[in-house]
């Protein structure tokens, strides 16, 4: 007997390469049946098709695929079942105990052939020239059923002349090849949740339509690629496949865009990347993707890519192309000279959340051991550093508590200061799936984000919190829980520190934390907040997801602790469906923090003052290490302006565009004697650099990224580095030149060192990652397969610490001079500073940053949709185009920061989170006015950029 229900076996050897036709069913009840004479046991609810495929008897199919619910329309998968009349579809027929199934018979073969004949009678017979030749399920099935002739001819009415839609930059839609199996429509519904596609018309007139019969580009389609993936023919196919041909090999790797950490099969033809196909075995994405990960990879071969090292003595000079040895020697000599003249503490390094764990580990090691200081920081400083502080303080670990999959068990979901469908789109789709299944949603956000109302989704409560008042809001939520007796006292008694609970209760019950009192501060009506809090407090499983709308405030850390308080007070920690879930912005925010990139911590979040930890690292690294924190990014800039910080090694980060108060950052960069930038392009920071070290894309190197669920995923080298070196090799070379030798032969050796020195990583190795696919840390002897859900029994600090979260108003507030509040965010098609996505066709969706203005505020100022408006704060001024929308509340304006010329951070101030210095990007007091020319800064920027481009051009052309 074949027994396919062995969970351990499923975990050990999942067969992601097979399409089982219908989704896996989880059930503790097992059912035995016989298929083609073989007995098989599967979970109750499994389809006959899936059971047969598991037993090795693949049944012909067209409309079925295991990422979608069974549909039963194509009639190819018919079978014979003893005791059942006719020939049922195996995809829609569940197994039952004792069932006897035959998948092959003369009669079945004839029926399937007849069905296939009908399909082919309205399908172009251009297989030899079709882009899907060799990768077409219709072609395969025609072969399987033995179709040799089409009796009906092709003269009758058909769809063969239907017009091809080429509007989307990444894929085409050719309705002449469509068999109307609905897989694309169902993928858009079930997987992506956008519902952009439909079957229009009936009978012979049935056809797939985007939106209201629009081109794909003009429809609601978000270009996630789910429809392309689901299509069994060439109807929906990547333009890259049409242009290059079918890929011939593939390598599983991890996307380098957002913190979801999707796994992809990079499919190549020779060394040419043909397409990125979402990998079914991906623990985070389970076969889904977004427009960035799926399609936006052409930046890797963009002409702007710099592949030879560059050096110069001054930023007013032309660059000189040099070889690697000269560039590394030039950089090391400069840094050593600076240290000799200004002291050891006069230089530092910045790691990036866009780089791998191994790369960030090496940079912090270089700074601590090679430079001899703790002046190392990461760009997580400006996004999720408050998460690290807040969760470490309350829960004892600087990380989210759940898997993404956990959301499928949540009953009430609160999304606060996050916009998952834009910034974490694959998780956004998973969230929408759960909401369509009945979970309730609370959105706390100044903007009406897509989740507030979209097809089949409607938030129970949209709490439009005024920017800068999150703590007052979260306190009021907790106040209501206490008042309504919705606390989980048993959980708090068992799991939380008594004294902290008592202090918190005493604080939170005070009248000033009531929704009636906070209403004036937050702008959230008390009645609405009370209803939301009751919904949250009464849920069997309530989960909180939050993003930069929480952290990037002067009280970002306090709000994170307030969120943890809510979870602790209601017992929503330590199981599936609950938890505190920071949605990380970039691909390796979690990892860069884990790897000791912060100036006060070694890898594994251990303070540099801890003697035992320091001795451990001193022993392994063979040098004495400092026991006091180094400078954080904003402190480095201050010190540079003050003349005490002179040299910086920056790997994969563009703070001249991404960090607040651009003028201050630029002054700091101009003050440095040696700025070394390691990146793909001459980005905004690199324009101020003296050394440019050409980095490698994620396709060109080995390593690991750690996503927002603490999932360590392998990044696998797909092609050779264009510059000849992977990033870890560059850091290693610089370290050696600085006099601190490093001798790694492969990133796996770096991970082995990380595992040796970091208690939460002791079980992690490349071999183990290859074996398990991915690992969620902690992974050690207590958790050899990793830890999907944290804090199930105990917190790393023993008991949870509830925090007193006093609301302290930000000093950045609306005044007569600056009466509006600017808040910033992201958009689906662009990624962070846009260095990658701006160099792809994604620009077609978002070619410029715009300013969203409420109609009332626009009318008061005589601003019309599309007008140029000057946006002014106490920090600076810029000009953008206005978009009038009610998505934003009156008194608040909104923009993105994906294009450097926008200068969004010319406006933002040096206000920051009190605990971590994370900038207060989300609150800047501003004024608007209609203008007709660019701002002074923009004009300067334009001149400076042209000058720097010329310096580069000169180097390249000799």
């Amino acid at each position, binding site marked *: 007997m074949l027994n396919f229900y062995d969970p351990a076996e499923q975990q050990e050897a999942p067969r992601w390469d097979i399409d089982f036709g219908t989704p896996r069913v989880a059930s503790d009840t097992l059912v035995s049946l016989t298929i083609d004479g073989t007995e098989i046991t599967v979970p109750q609810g499994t389809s006959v098709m899936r059971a047969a495929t598991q037993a090795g008897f693949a049944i012909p199919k067209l409309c079925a695929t295991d990422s979608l619910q069974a549909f039963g329309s194509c009639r190819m998968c018919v079978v014979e079942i003893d005791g059942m009349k006719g020939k049922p579809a195996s995809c829609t027929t569940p197994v039952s105990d004792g069932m006897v199934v035959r998948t092959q018979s003369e009669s079945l073969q004839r029926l399937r052939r007849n069905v296939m004949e009908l399909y082919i009678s309205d399908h172009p017979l251009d297989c030899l020239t079709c882009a899907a030749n060799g990768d077409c399920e219709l072609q395969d099935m025609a072969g399987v059923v033995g179709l040799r002739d089409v009796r009906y001819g092709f003269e009758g009415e058909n769809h063969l002349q239907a017009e091809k839609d080429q509007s989307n930059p990444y894929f085409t839609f050719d309705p002449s090849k469509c068999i109307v199996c609905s897989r694309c429509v169902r993928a858009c519904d079930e997987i992506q949740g956008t519902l952009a596609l439909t079957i229009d018309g009936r009978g012979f007139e049935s056809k797939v339509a985007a939106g209201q019969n629009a081109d794909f580009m003009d429809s609601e389609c978000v270009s996630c690629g789910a429809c392309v993936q689901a299509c069994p023919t060439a109807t929906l196919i990547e333009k890259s496949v049409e242009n290059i041909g079918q890929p011939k090999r593939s390598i599983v790797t991890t996307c380098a865009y957002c913190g979801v950490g999707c796994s992809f099969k990079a499919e190549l033809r020779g060394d040419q990347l043909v397409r990125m196909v979402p990998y079914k075995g991906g623990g985070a994405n389970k076969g889904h993707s977004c427009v960035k990960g799926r399609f936006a990879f052409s930046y890797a071969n963009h002409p702007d890519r710099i592949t030879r090292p560059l050096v110069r003595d001054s930023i007013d000079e032309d660059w000189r192309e040099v070889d690697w040895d000269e560039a590394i020697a030039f950089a090391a000599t400069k840094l050593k000279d600076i240290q000799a003249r200004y002291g050891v503490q006069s230089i530092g390094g910045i790691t990036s959340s866009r780089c791998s764990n191994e790369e960030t580990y090496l940079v912090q090691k270089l700074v601590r051991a090679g430079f001899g200081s703790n002046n190392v920081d990461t760009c997580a400083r400006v996004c999720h550093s408050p998460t690290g502080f807040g969760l470490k303080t309350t829960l004892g670990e600087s990380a989210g508590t759940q898997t993404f999959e956990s959301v499928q068990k949540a009953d009430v979901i609160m999304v606060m200061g996050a916009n998952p469908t834009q910034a974490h789109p694959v998780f956004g789709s998973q969230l929408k799936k759960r909401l369509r299944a009945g979970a309730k949603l609370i959105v706390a956000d100044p903007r009406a984000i897509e989740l507030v109302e979209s097809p089949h989704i409607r938030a129970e409560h949209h709490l439009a919190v005024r920017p800068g008042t999150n703590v007052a809001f979260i306190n009021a939520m907790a106040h209501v829980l206490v008042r309504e007796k919705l606390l989980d006292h048993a959980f708090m008694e068992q799991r939380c520190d008594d004294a902290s609970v008592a202090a918190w209760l005493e604080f939170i019950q005070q009248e000033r934390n009531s929704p009636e009192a906070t209403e004036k501060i937050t702008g959230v009506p008390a009645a609405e907040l009370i209803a939301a809090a009751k919904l949250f407090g009464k849920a069997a499983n309530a989960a909180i997801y939050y993003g930069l709308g929480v952290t990037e405030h002067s009280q970002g850390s306090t709000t994170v602790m307030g969120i943890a308080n809510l979870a602790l007070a209601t017992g929503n920690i330590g199981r599936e469906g609950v938890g505190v879930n920071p949605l990380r912005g970039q691909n390796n925010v979690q990892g860069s923090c884990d790897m000791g990139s912060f100036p006060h911590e070694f890898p594994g979040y251990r303070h540099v003052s801890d003697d035992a930890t320091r001795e451990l690292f001193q022993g392994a690294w063979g040098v004495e290490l400092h026991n006091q924190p180094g400078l954080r990014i904003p402190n480095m800039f*201050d010190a540079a302006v003050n003349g005490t910080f002179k040299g910086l090694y920056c790997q994969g980060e563009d703070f001249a565009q991404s960090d607040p108060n651009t003028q201050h950052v630029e002054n700091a960069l101009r003050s440095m004697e040696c700025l070394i930038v390691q990146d793909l392009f001459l980005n905004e920071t690199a324009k101020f650099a003296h050394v440019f070290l050409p980095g490698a894309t994620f396709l060109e190197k080995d390593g690991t990224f750690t996503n927002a669920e603490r999932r360590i995923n392998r990044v696998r080298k797909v092609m050779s580095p264009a510059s000849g070196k992977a990033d870890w090799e560059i850091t290693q070379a610089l370290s050696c030149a600085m006099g601190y030798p490093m001798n790694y032969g492969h990133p796996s050796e770096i991970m082995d060192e990380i595992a040796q020195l970091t208690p939460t990583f002791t079980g992690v190795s490349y071999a183990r990652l290859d074996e398990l696919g991915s690992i969620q840390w902690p992974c050690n002897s207590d958790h050899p397969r990793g830890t999907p859900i944290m804090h199930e029994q105990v917190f790393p600090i023993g008991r949870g610490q509830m925090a007193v979260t006093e609301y302290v108003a930000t000093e950045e507030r609306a005044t007569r001079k600056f009466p509006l509040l600017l808040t910033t965010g992201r958009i689906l098609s662009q990624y962070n500073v846009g260095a990658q996505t701006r160099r792809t066709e994604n620009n077609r969706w978002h070619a410029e940053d715009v300013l969203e203005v409420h109609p009332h505020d626009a009318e008061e100022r005589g601003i019309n949709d599309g007008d140029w408006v000057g946006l002014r704060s106490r920090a600076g001024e810029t000009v953008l185009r206005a978009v009038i929308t009610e998505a934003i509340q009156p008194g608040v304006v909104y923009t993105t920061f994906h294009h450097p010329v926008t200068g969004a951070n010319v406006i933002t101030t040096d206000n920051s989170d009190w*605990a971590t210095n994370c900038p207060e990007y989300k609150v800047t007091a501003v004024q608007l006015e209609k203008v007709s020319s660019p701002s002074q800064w923009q004009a300067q920027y334009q001149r400076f950029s042209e000058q720097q481009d010329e310096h580069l051009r000169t180097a390249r052309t000799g």
Partner: protein
Amino acid sequence: MSSAIPAELKHNVKMLSDIVRNLGAGKSQESAVAAVSTHLKKFWSPSMIESLQKHRAEIADELPAVALQALDKLE
């Protein structure tokens, strides 16, 4: 913020004020001083603390007593 404060200290003075406003709220003076000094020691580089200590007289009017006592405690 007073223009008497050296420009290079303004940001650090502001950050310290923010820490006091957040960590000191609702606490006794003694507890607030302890919390603020612990935070500075844990997260601030020594050079930042020393620069404020060195210019204590110039920044005294701009900082609450808790901040100054925390700086004194770290001497």
